[in-house]
């Protein structure tokens, strides 16, 4: 069970790496943003996985007073925040990419660099 219990963390690691690879190795700016979005989602998975309690339920107290087992609410709160931060970054990044496309006529990193140098 030890291995199964860590599967979430391994998926987190691999997703993180896939995202990071897309960011670093891909020249297309939209691809980079998509990679960034995977990269951030991976971290959400890390937090939510650590919040899980075996046999627990969502932290909504139905019958006050009865002892119940709940999953940890704090990481949920943190990740709610992080999701919003994520889409904010993506939206801003997309706006910049649109402007780059208008100014430079391309969204490939190396072509932008080439045109940047010509100016």
């Amino acid at each position, binding site marked *: 069970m030890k291995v*199964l219990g860590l599967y979430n963390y391994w998926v987190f690691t691999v997703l993180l790496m896939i995202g990071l690879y897309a960011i670093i190795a891909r020249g297309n700016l939209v691809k980079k943003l998509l990679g960034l979005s995977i990269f951030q989602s991976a971290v959400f998975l890390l937090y939510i996985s650590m919040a899980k309690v075996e046999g627990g339920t969502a932290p909504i107290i139905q019958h006050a007073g009865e002892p119940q087992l709940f999953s940890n609410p704090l990481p949920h709160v943190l990740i709610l925040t992080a999701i919003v931060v994520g889409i904010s*970054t993506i939206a801003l990044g997309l706006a910049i990419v649109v402007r780059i496309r208008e100014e430079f006529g391309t969204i490939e990193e190396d072509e932008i660099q080439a045109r940047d140098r010509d100016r």
Partner: protein
Amino acid sequence: MVTAFGFVLLTLLLVTAVAIVVTPNLFVAVMLTSIFSLLMAATFFLLDAADVALTEAAIGAGMSTILFLGALALIGEHEARRRRRPWLPLAVIGLTAFTLIYATFDKPRLGDPAAPVHQHVAPWYLEQTPELMGMSNVVTAVLAGFRAYDTLGEVLVILTAGFGVLLILAERRAGGRPDRPPAVGLRHHLIPRVVGQLLIPFIVLFGLYLQFHGEFGPGGGFQAGAIIAVGIVLHALLEGEAAGRAILPTRVLTGLMAGGAFLFAAVGIAGMLLGGEFLDYSGFSADPVAGQQLGVHLVEAGVGITVTGTLVAAFHAFADRERPA
């Protein structure tokens, strides 16, 4: 059974992520990202994070996809293929992966109730929420109450992003295609239009339900704001950009964005004026618990207003732009 299902979902997540990176068509990649978000939302739900799942579905799979598509309409969908030397990225990734895998070996097993993460602060929230806040959704109580300051920061992040999109796309460039017909949406397509119009009231209603029911069940300002924004965006998609703008002009949207955030900050400052700390709601009413609830309502309202305004404004900023020649 649930474990096995989670296992499958996680594996699908991996497959989808690889497909996103590999596909040369950006449009396909964006649609796959939407699927990725839905799978992620399902995973969160299995891990008992109902609120997070709702947010991921509404924001990750919904709004984020719409924004990507709006941008792709201006950018074009093909990725250029180039041979690049992948050694440096691979080295960086290898090192990071090694660190993380190394770290996992001492991590507590998934779901272990004795893990340190469940010991210190978290039980306090679960115990004190009914007493101090008088609400059943602990996530909402922590989000808008105990850690409301974080949430203020979060509202400001999305406000900043909204202002950023408006600022960056404020500059209009000549050289768009003049012969392009004005965007009329799906006005000439009867079936989607009728069905879509039928759905919009329900979408908005569901958003409002989430807004006001957040204390008792999954929901709250972020989810509500995102879903209401989707409803408004759907209207603009069906009736055309101009009609969408007519019901909520940029001026109004800016007002909503700024107003919601200012409402949140003002609630905080009111707490100070009433003799407490910043964001202390207990002074709002003679009964501290009622004061807390009022404060949470106001704060969530601010969140909902800002999120709606920002997402709709960001959509219009992309949709209302002419594609460069």
